[in-house]
């Protein structure tokens, strides 16, 4: 070994392609429940059959949402769609670990977390259809608007967490009161200045924020090796807070680790970095073509780690759900698909003049004049509405 540290081959080579020895895993790809004595042991939890069925249902419905949205884009009903295929467990695990009073700052791919927060998926479709920039009230669902600029939301999350500290909702010991924030981002964003500044600020003020990084191995066409020379979770140490790598395709482990990190934050013990080790099975977005830059063999090997299949195998093998349950979930997914297809096409286009709304809390005279001028212009056409 190089006396100055590992080289890329050691960090990202074949021996680490499964996430390495530090990976926290509670359910193997084969659907086998594992209990660690070493790393990850402290995160082990008991799950009720109801919880397991809930995870399964969430992941199936979220995958269906993703599949439908992708199809809607192919049919020209959406301008673009950011696919989450393969990341269902990371998002559902992180989403279900939240308490109602926690707050989430998403990227543009957190459809599974949005689902867990009870946000109507049609709101997500509205954004990607281009009828608005996100037509939901963040305060209603404690889920921020999608942020397109990579990493910018990590600072917002940190500031929001600093606000929680000032509101006295951190470290009181009251489980109904204590709250924390989750900042979502990806492996590509880990290179952004804003993300690193968020780490600095969160550490400096001991802010109650969980930095939840879905390392899906690809930032559009750039592999993780282009972003980092060490496993991402190890960066946390340099900022002065703990980092954990969890199997992001294992919903149980993701739930357990996120829950522990959130509790740590709510208790006033500060930030945690969670690296959910996963894989982007689809394209970056529907405009992307991953066949240009990655090997199909890699995708095939990750198919064997599918997040839904392992829960299904575990539940079936242990008799935790009957056939009727799986049929119900499948039917529910079909209903969701119909609702999304019909709902998406029925979303009304905004009126042109609505573009002038909410630029400011009040409308300055100059802008009002522009609006009135444009309204008169539109009306000047024959047959204008």
């Amino acid at each position: 070994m190089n006396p100055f540290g590992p080289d890329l081959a050691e960090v990202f080579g074949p021996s680490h392609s499964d996430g390495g020895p530090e990976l926290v895993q509670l359910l193997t790809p084969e659907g086998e429940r594992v209990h660690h004595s070493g790393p990850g042991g402290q995160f082990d939890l008991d799950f009720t059959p109801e919880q397991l069925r809930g995870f399964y249902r969430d992941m199936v419905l979220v995958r269906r949402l993703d599949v439908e949205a992708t199809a809607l884009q192919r049919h020209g009903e959406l301008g673009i769609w950011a696919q989450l295929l393969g990341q269902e467990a990371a998002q559902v695990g992180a989403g279900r670990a939240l308490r109602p009073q926690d707050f989430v700052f998403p990227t543009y791919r957190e459809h599974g977390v949005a689902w867990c927060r009870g946000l109507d998926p049609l709101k997500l479709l509205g954004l990607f259809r281009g009828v608005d920039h996100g037509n939901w009230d963040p305060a209603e669902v404690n889920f921020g608007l999608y942020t397109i600029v990579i990493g910018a939301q990590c600072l917002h999350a940190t500031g929001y967490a600093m606000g929680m500290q000032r509101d006295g909702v951190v470290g009181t010991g009251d489980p109904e009161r204590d709250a924390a924030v989750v900042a979502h981002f990806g492996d590509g964003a880990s290179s952004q200045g804003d993300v690193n500044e968020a780490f600095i600020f969160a550490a400096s003020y001991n802010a109650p924020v969980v930095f939840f990084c879905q390392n899906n191995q690809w930032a559009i066409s750039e592999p993780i090796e282009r972003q980092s020379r060490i496993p991402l979770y190890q960066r946390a140490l340099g900022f002065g807070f703990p980092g954990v790598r969890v199997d992001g395709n294992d919903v149980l482990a993701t739930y357990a680790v996120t829950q522990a990190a959130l509790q740590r934050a709510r208790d006033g013990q500060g930030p945690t970095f969670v690296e959910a080790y996963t894989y982007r099975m689809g394209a970056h977005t529907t405009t992307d073509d991953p066949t240009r830059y990655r090997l199909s063999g890699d995708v095939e090997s990750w198919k064997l780690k599918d997040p839904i299949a392992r829960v299904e195998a575990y539940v079936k093998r242990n008799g935790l759900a009957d056939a009727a349950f799986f049929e119900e979930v499948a039917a529910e997914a079909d209903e969701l698909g119909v609702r999304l297809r019909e709902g998406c096409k029925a979303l009304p286009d905004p009126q042109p003049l609505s573009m002038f709304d909410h630029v400011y809390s009040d409308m300055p005279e100059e802008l009002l004049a522009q609006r009135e001028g444009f309204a008169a212009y539109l009306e000047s056409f024959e047959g204008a509405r």
Partner: protein
Amino acid sequence: MTGSSQKITLAKGLNMGLRKAMEADDKVLVMGEDVGKLGGVFRITDGLQKDFGEDRVIDSPLAESGIVGTAVGMAMRGYRPVVEIQFDGFVYPAYDQIVCQVAKIQYRSKGRVPMPMVIRIPFGGGIGAVEHHSESPEAQFAHTPGLKVVACSNPVDGYWMIQQAIACDDPVIFLEPKRQYHADKADLDDTATPDPLFASRVVRQGTDVTVLAYGPTVKTALKAAEAASNEGRSLEVIDLRTLSPLDMAPVYDSVRRTGRAVVVHEAHVNLGMGAELSSRITEECFYSLEAPVLRVGGFDTPYPASRIEEDFLPDLDRVLDAVDRSLGF
């Protein structure tokens, strides 16, 4: 102090205004580099941390994007952050957060997430500083929908305008002419009723040429008007005070009377505020104009080394030169 008149500098006016705003609303937070114990490199936040505590007057890590980005989060949580950028030339690391987030979150959210934030920026030159300490970036913010941009020019305005900016529900870029911080004193009557924040003001009446200025150049314009009056020329000086939105009614009214306008700012002339003002005046006052609108500003060079900065900055003579050219048409 209440009700009594006192002589204050711009620095003192801003400090007093910040204090009043913090007393009036405990959601008001001050955040920036060195704003706590030190009171800011210009001492604008002097004594605030001592009186309001470290939770409300926050010394930040040295990262401008981090300051503005976390302030966004605090605003989402219901606070009203007042951010200090130490010098104009240091705002650029935060430019993305300001333009992409601060300016757009209210719009993106259909008004559901207001962004009541004030970003204070000491701007302009004339203090003999090294590079990045003397710039005038106002046009870069005035060009961005969603931001409001104001510039104070005197101690009394500093006192009132900072309070009004903090009370505003929109994000406000608040420009402070750093050269004036400790320069002149003025009488503050804190029982007076201030002008609205987003309003321009005629600060000297005249009949021959309208001179438009803001921030540090208001003083320059007033000096020029004084000098011109000795030569029998009557300049009307308008302190614009608000750069976005612009308050054009007093400007149009003035130019329709004088038929001539000269815009004075320290910022580069190319695509600066003067270009927009000139365009609007031409569109609205075309038949009243006796001469094209002229601009006096910083040259289209980077800010030069300070030993020649007075040659870069518009001064009394360059304003008068433009006035002569305007009257020569």
